[in-house]
């Protein structure tokens, strides 16, 4: 013990080194936590560890390839049949959607609204690597090479999944809605009441704080993204309300919601690029472009 204290007290080269490195680490963490300036450095290091991550996905891929190849033909036939039916159903709905979209566009023109939100999507697959334990993050096989950017919204067939937090050449990391650091502006679909959903760190639970007791919100209400803040596009389903509690000591309601997507299931997600199609006929916008 005495020796330990002497060693800790006496300045050895090792002590100097550890102090310098700890200081450096803290500086790195501060910069990384507060700003985006280290993304470039992260990308460079990522290309070094990418081969390691790639190799580590191989066993799982091989097992999956094997199980897929021994799938029986009858099994495949039933799957094929059900997919065909589903496809037919979706097609018929899509037909309706097209006419609705045209209607919508016409009405918007009548109202003088010049912008229309169009979206470009890209299918990305989950990369099965272990990320930091006990974080709500996933890794995707599309990166900055495919124009994936930090802050990009990620959805799947059911609704919003999360947003991109890091990108590298070939991969990107997505923070799920349930991550404690995540928040998404939403509104109640029934009446347009706005709020913000926060991740709780607990799987399948999002909190909706700061709603006053007189707020018109009920159990079972569907919450859709409101598009406020400009990060997530408008109108995607996010969660349904499962619990509303009024704590007498609290002036706000305690509202818990269930994400509509099973965040830890499925292998494919969609990356979306919200973009505005500029209306060339609008004189105001034309002016803006000319400048």
């Amino acid at each position, binding site marked *: 013990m005495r020796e*330990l204290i002497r060693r800790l007290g006496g300045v050895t080269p090792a002590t100097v080194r550890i102090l310098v490195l700890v200081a450096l680490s803290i500086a790195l963490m501060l910069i990384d936590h507060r700003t985006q300036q280290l993304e470039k450095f992260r990308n460079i290091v990522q290309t070094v560890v990418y081969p390691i991550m790639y190799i580590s996905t191989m066993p799982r891929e091989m097992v999956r390839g094997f199980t897929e190849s021994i799938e029986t033909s009858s099994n495949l036939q039933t799957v094929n049949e059900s997919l065909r039916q589903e496809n037919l159903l979706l097609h018929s709905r899509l037909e309706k959607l097209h006419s609705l979209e045209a209607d919508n566009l016409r009405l918007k023109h009548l109202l003088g609204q010049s912008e229309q939100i169009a979206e470009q999507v890209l299918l990305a697959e989950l990369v099965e690597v*272990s*990320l930091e334990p006990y974080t709500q993050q996933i890794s995707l096989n599309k990166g900055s090479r495919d124009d994936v950017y930090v802050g990009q919204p990620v959805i799947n067939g059911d609704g919003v999944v999360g947003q991109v937090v890091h990108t590298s050449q070939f991969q990107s990391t997505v923070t799920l809605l349930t991550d404690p650091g995540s928040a998404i502006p939403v509104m109640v679909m029934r009446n347009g009441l706005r709020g913000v959903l926060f991740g709780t760190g607990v799987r399948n639970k999002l909190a909706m704080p700061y709603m006053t007791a007189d707020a018109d919100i009920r159990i079972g209400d569907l919450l859709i993204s409101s598009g406020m803040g400009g990060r997530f596009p408008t109108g995607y389903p996010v969660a349904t309300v499962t619990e509303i509690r009024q704590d007498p000591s609290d002036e706000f309601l305690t509202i818990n919601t269930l994400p509509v997507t099973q965040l830890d299931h499925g292998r494919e997600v969609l990356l979306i690029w919200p973009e505005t199609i500029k209306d060339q006929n609008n004189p105001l916008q034309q002016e803006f472009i000319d400048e």
Partner: protein
Amino acid sequence: MNNLPVMVSFLLALLLTSLPIPETAVMFRPEWLVLVLIYWCMATPERIGIFTGWLMGLLLDVMYGSMLGQNAMSLSVIAYLVGILHLRVRMFPLWQQSVMVFVLVLVHLGINAWIRGITGQFTIVWTYWTPALTSALVWPFLFILLRDLGRQRIKR
């Protein structure tokens, strides 16, 4: 290439760390990188030390997508502690070394939990700490394996 066993073992440790495993198994996964770092800091303190720990931590940060510097800090601290203790610990029987590994991995997990707590993104569950136990259990086997690897090189 005198450093070959060191590099290979660090590479394998990183591989094992990023290997996808079922959600329920995460709590049992030993901290491979910490174990390998402890071994080499003990066996060859003149070559492997604080700086190596820091670099490996940085790689782990990038791989995990965690804050840059988080694991770098904890691993360099681990390397520093082993640097202080290595002369004594080398004399310890294996099971006592395991106890020390248990404590060191706890320190590693503690520093990580602490940083993640400060940045406000972390709720601790008790399974977060179990890798310390599994790491301690794996230690004797890893120790023998790495030691034999080193010896074979000397014989040649």
